[in-house]
């Protein structure tokens, strides 16, 4: 199946004086997908997004968003894309209602008060920007980013500073946008969030893409160790020297944690050991490797997946 790439990045490089922020990366984002850019601080995520948004000039390489060059034709790009910046601002004295009217007027669309309602800002319509909480400011930025029905939405750390409820609301909004055919590119530190939302991810490290693919493919490409956390009354299992198939072992918050290649055999052995030592079980958890585990594995070894 031929997929329609809506964002194309080829050999993109960006430096700040001597610091190489992004080092010749290439990737595509397909129409209608949620694409996650992951990486630690300084990995080059924001630089990549800001060059795609036309806010920064790349040193070299080709960037195209819906076949538009973001730097040469950023005015045309404005109505095609929606952007929630990591660091952006609004005039302190602008109210939520005014900001919606103001920005929608420049996009030549009617104000989308329904979005403000959807994002829990309907009771803040006349509140001035400086009086909003961080979470409310980020939700307003998201509402303004998508109010003109852009075809591609760029979100830089969209849930930073949001509480659990707001985060969940925002996830629902993103899924609705995707269902409506919008392509979403988001950068985040939150691996669980990206794993849950994104169709594909690229992991950036020191300006290079060190892994890319679907979250499932990426986790499968790792060592494949299953995490077993066990909490017993006397922590007897901590004293045992050997359990079958266990490759790594650690302790945290009263739990003994085992990383195993054969979870069935390890669980059985752990339970038998605890029973034999008359040590009552309090909790037992078996977790498959997550994107975060894979990310930590990659960043620890600086492994480059071609």
């Amino acid at each position, binding site marked *: 199946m031929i997929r329609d790439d809506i964002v194309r990045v080829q050999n993109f490089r960006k430096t700040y004086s001597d610091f190489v922020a992004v080092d010749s990366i290439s990737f595509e984002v397909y129409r209608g997908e949620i694409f996650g850019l992951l990486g630690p601080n300084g990995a080059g995520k924001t630089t990549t997004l800001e060059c795609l*948004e*036309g*806010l*920064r*000039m790349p040193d070299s390489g080709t960037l195209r968003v819906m076949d538009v060059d973001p730097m040469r034709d*950023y*005015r045309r790009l*404005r*109505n095609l*894309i929606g*952007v929630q*910046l990591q*660091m*952006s*601002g*609004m*005039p*302190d*004295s*602008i109210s939520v209602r*005014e900001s919606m*009217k*103001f*920005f929608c*007027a*420049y*996009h*030549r669309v009617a104000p989308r008060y329904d979005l403000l309602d959807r994002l829990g800002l309907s009771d803040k319509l006349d509140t*001035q920007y400086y009086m909003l909480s961080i979470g409310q400011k980020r939700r307003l*930025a998201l509402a*303004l980013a998508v109010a003109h029905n852009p075809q591609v939405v760029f979100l830089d750390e969209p849930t930073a500073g949001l509480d659990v409820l707001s985060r969940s609301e925002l996830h629902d909004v993103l899924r609705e946008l995707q269902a409506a055919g919008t392509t979403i590119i988001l950068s985040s530190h939150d691996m669980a969030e990206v794993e849950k939302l994104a169709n594909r991810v690229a992991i950036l490290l020191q300006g290079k893409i060190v892994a890319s693919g679907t979250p499932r493919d990426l986790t499968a490409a790792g060592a494949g160790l299953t995490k077993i956390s066990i909490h017993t009354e006397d922590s007897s299992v901590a004293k045992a020297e050997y359990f079958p198939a266990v490759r790594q072992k650690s302790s945290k918050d009263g739990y003994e944690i085992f990383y195993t290649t054969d979870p069935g055999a390890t669980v059985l052995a752990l339970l038998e050991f605890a029973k034999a030592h008359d040590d009552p079980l309090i909790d037992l958890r078996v977790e498959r490797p997550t994107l975060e585990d894979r990310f930590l594995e990659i960043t620890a070894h600086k492994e480059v997946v071609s």
Partner: protein
Amino acid sequence: MTAFVHHFSFEFRAGVRNRSLLLLNYLFPIGFYLLAGTLMTSLNPSFKEYLIPAMVFFTILTSTLLGLPDPIVSARESGIFRSYKIHGIPELAILIIPALTTILHTIVVAVLIVLTAPLLFQAVLPANWLSFVLSFFLMAFASAGIGLLIGVVSPSSRATILLAQALFLPSMMIGGLMFPAHMLPDALRTVALLLPSTHAVNILGGWTPGGIYTFNPYASAAVLYAGGALAFIMALILFNWDKDNPTRHVRPVFALLAFAPYVIAAVLTFVGI
């Protein structure tokens, strides 16, 4: 057009909502007008002849030189312009609309002064309304251009205050607002021609029957017009969306080009032409 109306409407309201702008657009000029009207007219009764234009020109100076630049610097520093850019708001609107709303604020205060000064302080109304209105708009245009230019080139709020005061204080002292420019020593009279207020006062004097002027009033009008136009053009050329990511690479020192008409006027006066 709708975008312009919303932008203009918001900027105008911001000029009242924002406490420092409220102070500089209204409270400070009105307070100073009441104080000067009370003190100066009792100390020097002839000041009643100059009270209205002096206080109106003072209002222009506070709003444009002290009030206009800092919001531009703050907006650039806090990422507001980045938000504007991603929503496609053009640089021209970002610069022109605050300048226009600031001039509108000065008109409101000017009308208040014109209406109340004769009643409160027996101030003399302008003899030539056309020259008064023309000098008002030319000075507002020129000063707003300089205010924008300061906002665009200033690297921080602290530097903005220094740059603005570098023009505001001399304008107050030797710009013809507190006492007529012809009373200044020759050297200072020449230096005063570097200031928009001197030319505005000069236009008013030159086009009023029996008025005193130190420089050809038509040339003063040309200086204010050219200075204002150059300042707006240079502000547009030097405008940057982002403090960390300059998109324009013209050196800020080129902002001084906007003062070329004032310098030419001063030089011509100095050499006696």
